[in-house]
């Protein structure tokens, strides 16, 4: 069912990288096309050149990229040779675009209605009343609740999903023939992601527009794509109808990408935990007060009456979306913030080791959790040296740990910026292990990583747990990841625990309505089993 004509035709697009990069071209001779009425997903890991391609189509390439060659034809006209005035007219009218982070894509000090209105003011000459009516209609079309009231809201007053809807409304108000969506759901919770995806799908069907959808998430691709383009290092690796690429991939890289997505099959259903209790959390509550003298006081219950216990050799998953209190729990356990009530106790210890030698944490963002001004060796030995280990001995141990987490031991003298995201997360793990802890708290430790790297780091954590008999508190929003590594699960929603139990039983029959919604929202579920490898 090849649709009649292609709106976007990219041929031999090559964008050279400015000097000093690890490769010559950001985008290296790619060709792809988007037809009216189809959704083309460009999928690839970070650094594959997918976002640069989208920017090139919009004429929004940063100035450092020069000497772009190849052609980008939009409805038969070459975008690369268009004048700035022509491009301005094309954006919004011909091509709409939505971005990854809806908070930063909106102006924080302008009402959202006015921001949608700006598109109309720029492109059309309409009376104030007509414009307002069209903005309200556009907001209704993306199912924003109560558009009359939300017109006057500021971005910070909306939820992430609502903000993304505002952006979609702004991008589509002039009925463009092509929508470019650059990771539009990556920053959103899974339940919101599912809503936004179905919305993009509906709008696309109603209007018969073409969509160029950029994502790193194979699950999202399964949900939405008609055709798939797989990119790696600036080149197209594979291209074809979604059904073919996802179920009968012909390149190894595509197969690796698909296989790296964890299954929803609990991996540890036969794992028996017999270790002693290592961590006990009893009724921990964290309440934030804001406001004060002149305004009414506002009380935020970040965490309510949470209890859990964790044994040696066990991985307890804490599942929840943003704002569910899972990170607050981690910070209370790590004594980075004081709980309002309740207590955290560690199991009986041999030899009375200090708190921070017994429990360690791995943070989410591998780019910010290492001090950029210190070598990774210095970061790793800092803890042991704080507890009196001599420098040379600690350094020796740091080298062993680097080897343990699969890095070159001589790399201890390098700085964090010389490593990739996955390597940095390994370094963070090495730093945590340098303390020889009994308990490891992993706060979204694999969420910022590409799927292939994610799989490696998960294997590493799994392996280390077996070797060192660690108790792991694994905080994540991703049920697939949880299925791979956890023995038991706690599901958190709005600061409280709504469900807990063994992974296999929760996955088999989720009891709480929220847990069921979480499962229903997982993108691309159910089809994974059909993959032939």
């Amino acid at each position: 069912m090849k649709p009649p004509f292609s709106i976007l035709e990219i041929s031999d697009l090559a964008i050279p990288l400015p000097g000093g990069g690890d490769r010559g071209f950001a985008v290296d001779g790619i060709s792809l096309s988007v037809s009216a009425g189809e959704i083309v997903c460009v999928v690839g890991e970070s650094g594959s050149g997918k976002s640069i391609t989208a920017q090139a189509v919009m004429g929004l390439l940063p100035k450092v990229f020069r000497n772009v060659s190849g052609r980008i034809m939009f409805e038969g006209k070459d975008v690369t040779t268009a004048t700035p005035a022509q491009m301005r007219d094309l954006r919004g009218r011909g091509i709409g675009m939505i971005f990854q982070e809806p908070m930063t894509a909106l102006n924080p000090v302008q009402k959202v209605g006015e921001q949608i209105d700006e598109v109309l003011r720029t492109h059309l000459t309409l009376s104030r009343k007509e414009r307002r009516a069209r903005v309200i209609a556009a907001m209704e079309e993306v199912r924003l609740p109560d558009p009359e009231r939300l017109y006057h809201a500021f971005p910070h007053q909306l939820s992430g999903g609502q903000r993304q809807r505002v952006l979609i409304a702004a991008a589509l108000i002039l009925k463009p023939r092509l929508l470019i969506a650059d990771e539009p759901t990556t920053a959103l919770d899974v339940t919101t992601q599912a809503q936004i995806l179905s919305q993009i799908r509906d709008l696309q069907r109603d209007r018969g527009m073409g969509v160029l959808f950029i994502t790193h998430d194979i699950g999202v691709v399964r949900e939405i794509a008609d055709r798939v383009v797989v990119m790696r290092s600036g080149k197209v690796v594979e291209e074809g109808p979604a059904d073919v690429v996802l179920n009968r991939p012909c390149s190894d890289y595509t197969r690796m990408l698909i296989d790296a997505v964890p299954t929803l099959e609990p991996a540890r259903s036969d794992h028996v935990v017999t270790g002693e209790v290592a961590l006990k959390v009893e009724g921990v509550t964290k309440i934030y007060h804001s406001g004060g003298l002149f305004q009414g006081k506002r009380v935020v219950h970040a965490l309510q009456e949470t209890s859990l216990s964790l044994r040696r050799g066990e991985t307890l998953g804490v599942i929840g979306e943003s704002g569910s209190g899972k990170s607050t729990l981690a910070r209370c356990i790590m004594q980075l913030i004081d709980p309002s009530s309740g207590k955290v106790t560690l199991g009986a210890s041999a030899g009375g080791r200090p708190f921070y030698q017994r429990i360690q944490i791995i943070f989410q963002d591998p780019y910010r959790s290492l001090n950029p001004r210190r070598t990774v060796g210095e970061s790793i030995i800092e803890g042991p040296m704080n507890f009196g280990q001599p420098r040379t001995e600690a350094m020796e141990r740091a080298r062993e740990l680097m080897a343990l987490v699969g890095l070159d031991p001589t790399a201890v003298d390098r700085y964090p910026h010389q490593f990739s995201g996955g390597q940095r997360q390994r370094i963070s793990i090495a730093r945590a292990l340098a303390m020889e802890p009994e308990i490891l708290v992993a706060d979204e430790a694999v969420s910022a990583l590409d799927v292939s790297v994610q799989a490696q780091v998960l294997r590493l954590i799994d392996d280390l747990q077996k070797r060192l008999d660690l108790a792991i508190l694994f905080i994540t929003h991703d049920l697939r990841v949880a299925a791979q590594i956890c023995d038991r699960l706690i599901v958190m929603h709005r600061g409280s625990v709504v469900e807990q139990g063994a992974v296999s039983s929760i996955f088999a029959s989720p009891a709480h309505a929220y847990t069921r919604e979480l499962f229903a929202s997982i993108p691309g579920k159910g089809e994974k089993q059909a993959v032939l490898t």
Partner: protein
Amino acid sequence: MTNLASPPLASVSTKRWPPPFLLHPSVFIGGLLVTMIILVAVLAPLLGTVDPSRIAPSMRLKPPSELAWFGTDLYGRDVYSRAIYGARSSILIGLCVAAAALIGGVAIGLVTGYFRWVDAVVMRIMDGLMAIPTFLLAIALVSLTRANVATVIVALTIPEIPRVVRLVRSVVLTVREEPFVEAAKTVGTSTPKLLWRHILPSTTAPLMVLGTYICASAILIEAGLSFLGTGLPPEIPSWGNMISEGRTFFQVAPRLVFLPSLFLALTVLGINLLGDGLRDTLDPRIAKRM
């Protein structure tokens, strides 16, 4: 990985010489000017000068000659020698004030930024200090004691400290929330070490820039104080003193004002150019905007 081949001591080998910021035009020109003035100050006795305080009543207000290249002043002192030696007091005061203000400001700023309860009290004091114009505060402080180099330095340092405190505090407030700082806490790093190792280094670049501005402003204010007669005592040669004394004879001998003014202008210009250049190269965000 592409960098496996780099030598083990990557920390040394990654530093380039000359560092790229030295090649920035204003850093280069400003740096050159400042270096020359410092050299002049240090090498003053070797630059064909005579004792700048030697009074020769018979040589009063002589025009330039081979003996006195820029003539003599009201008391027969050599104008050239006095201007050269004046660089010494200016540079000394500029550097000392900048160093003292930075050290004091960093210490207070780190503590106030990190400990929230100190913040409320200390920042109100700083606000109070900032409300008074620097120059007035300096005059008031100098007039409390007998003016000499040390008291002038103290008097100029105190009004500058709040600016440093504000800068350091703002950096600390953002850096203390960084995950790497929390990570350091969870490996048991004590608070002083945390401040020193993980937070202080983030302040160095903006501090270098602020330091140059403080230095320039201290030199100017010192000249102003001396001009008003509340600064350095007249026996110490300083550009402010010279301009002040020469002012009366401006009609007869403009050179008395011209030479020290030229030195003062070049010095402040050099330091400000250096500061602007450093700001542009060390803070790419501002540089891009301009």
